[in-house]
């Protein structure tokens, strides 16, 4: 395998392909308490995220719907797995952690065990034009939990 092929497999890791092909928690969430859209106008990626936050401030369930490239769909799917069960503030913290992990040239930020799977997205750091695909869902998560009704965009 040459370097180019290896790089490609680093971007499209098995977990990413799997989540893009079989997205988890895909569809509308009835009785959602928080929702936000994520739009990437350049690519045409469109996501809508739903969260049901219980009285105690914990995310009881999450889902998403929409269309986009493999990276954006896999990222949203991984997100729903990662943040369900978290306190709202912890989920927002996850959003910042993941976003900075994907966008900064610094050494990878630490991820706690429940975010382990998100390391599958690390390959996008080598593709500046694709980072936005991976961060889109996380911007939308932050917007939804901040009760910001404006769609999150990558611009």
């Amino acid at each position, binding site marked *: 395998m040459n370097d*180019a092929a290896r790089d*490609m497999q680093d971007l*499209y890791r098995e977990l990413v392909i799997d989540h893009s092909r079989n997205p988890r928690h895909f569809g509308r969430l009835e009785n959602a308490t928080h929702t936000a859209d994520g739009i990437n106008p*350049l690519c045409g990626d469109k996501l809508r995220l739903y969260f049901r936050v219980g009285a105690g401030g914990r995310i009881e369930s999450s889902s998403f719907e929409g269309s986009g490239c493999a990276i954006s769909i896999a990222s949203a799917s991984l997100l729903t797995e990662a943040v369900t069960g978290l306190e709202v503030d912890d989920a927002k913290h996850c959003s910042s952690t993941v976003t900075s992990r994907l966008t900064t040239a610094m050494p990878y930020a630490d991820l706690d065990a429940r975010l382990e799977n998100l390391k599958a997205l690390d390959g996008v750091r080598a593709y500046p034009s*694709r980072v936005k695909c991976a961060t889109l869902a996380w911007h939308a998560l932050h917007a939804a939990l901040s009760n910001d009704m404006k769609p999150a965009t990558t611009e």
Partner: protein
Amino acid sequence: MGAVAKTVTATDWRADFPALDQSVHGQALIYLDSAASAQQPAAVIDAVARYQREDHANVHRGVHTLSHRATEAYEGARDKIRGFINAKSRSEIVLTSGTTESINLVAQSFCRPRLQPGDKILITHLEHHANIVPWQLVCEQTGAELIVAPINERGEVELDSLLDLIDDRVFLIGMAHVANALGTVCPVEKVIEHARQRGIPVLIDGAQGVPHLDVDVQALDCDFYAFSGHKMFGPTGTGVLYGREAILDAMPPWQGGGDMILEVSFDKTIYNELPYKFEAGTPNISGVVGLGAAVDYLQSIGMPTIARYEQELHDHMVARLKNVDGMRLIGEARHKASVQSFLLDDIHSHDLGTILDHQGVAIRTGHHCAMPVMQFFGVPGTCRASLAFYNNRDDIEQLVAALEKARELFA
């Protein structure tokens, strides 16, 4: 020139383009995105550099030697462009920043003062945003209506349906010569013929026409023809609006400023003659010099030669792509130039674009600034491979091999 060029191979032409001789991600670059922006031959790059090094000054202003040289170079390019599209007079060649500005100029300077509520601007479903949005703006400003001629499943404008839409309220027809997203060559001659009979002006968006076809505006008999320098192997930020002289004469200026005036006082300004009336301010002199060099270069090969070579290569590309498993071609017009849009299995166009880039193959992905076309086919975007005469059959094989690899990765 055509006779000489017949013996020239694509490999010879490719060597004229320095940017094509490089590797990306360790693979030889295969550039299949000329419809977005074409590469420039050394002749263009050198002409711009020589102008900047030796001749630069402002145009139409000074009595000194450099200003004279700059003016000669700039106006010389205008003459070359006139010859390239066979306009009757150099007064009909307005230099702009590109197709987008050319069309906005017509919308604002020709249409806006004349449009009445209830008038119509007729375009087609194939247009890119530069031939949609300027008309929407002027319709909002005047109460006119934008109407759209339909296309069929092959991505062709339905001529009869378009002609049926023409009535006494149609003020202007704007349509692409070659559609950018699908490569459809549109029946502009027939539309112009009908429009002329009814006295309706026609603007042809030639952004994808001039790089691939032998364009003769007098033979076409259109009223306006708009195109960009960077899609015909010239610098970005250059473009042309051809306009029939009598029409341009009757239009007010587009922007105010220096160069477009004969005499200015605070009471009254007398506008300059054509085409300077439409060229306010210091223009993109070096870019236009480069555009002139691009015209020289294209004419040294000959547009009929280019058109013939590209047509053969395009048909070969389409035949090869059809043989790729999981291929869905978008746009299968009977008359096409240079471009093929497609989707592969259910792989998103951006994923495919990234995978191909990694194998050195540059294609365009997404909506190609033609969202209504994407909506027609019910897709968010497509992959688009577009050819120029510097491409060859090996490039097509590399594209096909890269697509096969993408299928393996997503299998």
